[in-house]
């Protein structure tokens, strides 16, 4: 498939936004349980929510550049019963609203106690918003990944690993962002967040490598034989029916050589996983200012490369029909 830069930006930006929100709420849950010192003031949650919101809005804006008719984008919420894309279109604004309210509630100190647990821990409105936001954030990971994983003949995508990867890679970049953010506004949380970012990045690396191994072993189900229905081991296309380009020759191929594809794979394995893991470990042990921020920037660039590879590697069966110009 041809990687469209707007979709690369959309999926990586909202992934980081979702992950950042999950990190903020994780800190709040740990603080409520008394496992972490509560961050001083509300700047951490409120400003953190603002950053998460900016990432989500950035992703939403990027998505419009993928559309031929962006002015009709509102229509895309209609078919949520059948379309994962439609579900994503609903869940993304819902998450944005909850992240906004979560930040505002923390900023305004609006914390009416809704319930009290038997252990004496008070459940206030921000916790309720956080729980709803967490559900929505995971739902959004599911929707985004299922857009790709639900297409059975794009076999590189049609795997539960796609959902695991989108969740873990979004979570990893979000927690790395949270660690970088905390090193600025709440240094006492930096080690906690950098530790989790390290763990999630490591898990993300494992699941992404698992999907690379899976995809390298795929054997195509569709062949020229099934494409035109002729049983013969040697079939060669002599003409695709036209000599200029068409949508079919542009949309479904990345247009680069196999060497580029292979080098992008190694680039993203290094920049999305290896280098950020080293920087996170460095930031976890001692924290020179900027190390964690660098970890996020490197990881985000690496995830852009990862997403490019994700698209480029997917081999659409329609390409069988477009192999020879003559």
């Amino acid at each position, binding site marked *: 498939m041809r990687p469209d830069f707007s979709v690369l930006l959309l999926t990586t930006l909202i992934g980081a936004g979702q992950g950042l929100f999950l990190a903020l709420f994780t800190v709040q849950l740990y603080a409520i349980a008394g496992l972490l010192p509560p961050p001083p003031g509300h700047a951490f949650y409120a400003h953190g929510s603002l950053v998460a919101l900016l990432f989500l809005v950035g992703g939403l804006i990027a998505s419009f550049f993928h559309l031929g008719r962006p002015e009709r984008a509102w229509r895309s919420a209609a078919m949520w019963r059948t379309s994962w894309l439609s579900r994503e279109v609903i869940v993304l604004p819902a998450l944005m609203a909850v992240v906004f309210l979560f930040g505002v509630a923390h900023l305004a100190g609006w914390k009416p106690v809704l319930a009290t647990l038997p252990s004496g821990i008070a459940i206030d409105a921000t916790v309720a918003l956080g729980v709803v936001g967490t559900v929505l954030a995971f739902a959004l990971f599911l929707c985004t990944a299922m857009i790709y994983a639900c*297409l059975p003949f794009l076999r590189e995508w049609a795997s539960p690993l796609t959902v695991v990867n989108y969740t873990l890679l979004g979570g990893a970049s979000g927690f790395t962002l949270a660690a970088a953010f905390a090193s600025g506004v709440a240094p006492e949380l930096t080690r906690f967040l950098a530790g989790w970012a390290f763990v999630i990045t490591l898990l993300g690396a494992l699941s992404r490598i698992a999907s690379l191994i899976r995809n390298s072993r795929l054997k195509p189900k569709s062949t020229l034989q099934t494409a035109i*229905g002729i049983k013969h081991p040697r079939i060669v296309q002599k003409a695709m*029916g036209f000599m200029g380009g068409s949508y079919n020759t542009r949309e479904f191929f990345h247009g680069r050589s196999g060497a580029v594809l292979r080098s992008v794979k190694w680039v993203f394995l290094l920049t999305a996983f290896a280098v950020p893991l080293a920087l996170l470990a460095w930031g976890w042990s001692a924290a020179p200012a900027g190390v964690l921020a660098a970890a996020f920037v490197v990881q985000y660039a690496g995830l852009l490369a990862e997403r490019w590879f994700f698209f480029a590697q997917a081999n659409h069966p329609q390409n069988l029909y477009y192999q020879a110009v003559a």
Partner: protein
Amino acid sequence: MTQLALVIDLNVCVGCHACVTSCKEWNTSGSAGPLADLEPYGKDPTGAFFNRVQTFEVGEYPNTQTVHFPKSCLHCEDPPCVPVCPTGASYKREADGIVLVDYDKCIGCKYCSWACPYGAREVDPKRKVMTKCTLCVDRIYDQTRPESERKPACVMACPTSARLFGDIHDPESVVSQAIRDNAGYALMPEWGTHPANHYLPRRKTPMHIHEDELARADNPLKVDGLLPKPAKSEPTLDDVMSW
């Protein structure tokens, strides 16, 4: 239930592209607006087409067959492109099974084209919406046309009648009979899309000459065997006779 479809006879198609040009002509002149035709005389012409004829070589020289393969939307009975559409612009008509795009609802997200394993959908580069074969829905129901012309433009144009049109759910229709009688098959059956369009395979017309046909075993008087067969060295009648 009706499921309109094309049946394309690969044994008859000569690859003349008449269906391609007539399709483009009909669909660029219709009420839905022109199909893009960019730089038609330039270096790199492009545009939207609903139908293409491709050419494949089967086998190894000298035992090869050239197969011309017309390709358009197959109007699948279980179309994977329809449920993925976020706006409902892509739909399959209950009445006749034609898969259509509502050009006024389409947002041009291209997702349906990703979901089609056959590459049957093309974004119109000018209108920025998804387009595809309509089975000439604006022609086949046109009451002002004589009954014999209520067929898709490609079917009307085919000089060798390689394209048949009809209802594959009606067992007596010309397309159902053609599929039954000539082993019609569907493309990429592995994805369970159940394409409505079918293809008829190449058929060989072999000639068998049996021994008894050479020896005239069916000659009841056995005249052949009774006639004298002089050796080549013996004089012929011409040698001994002066006429």
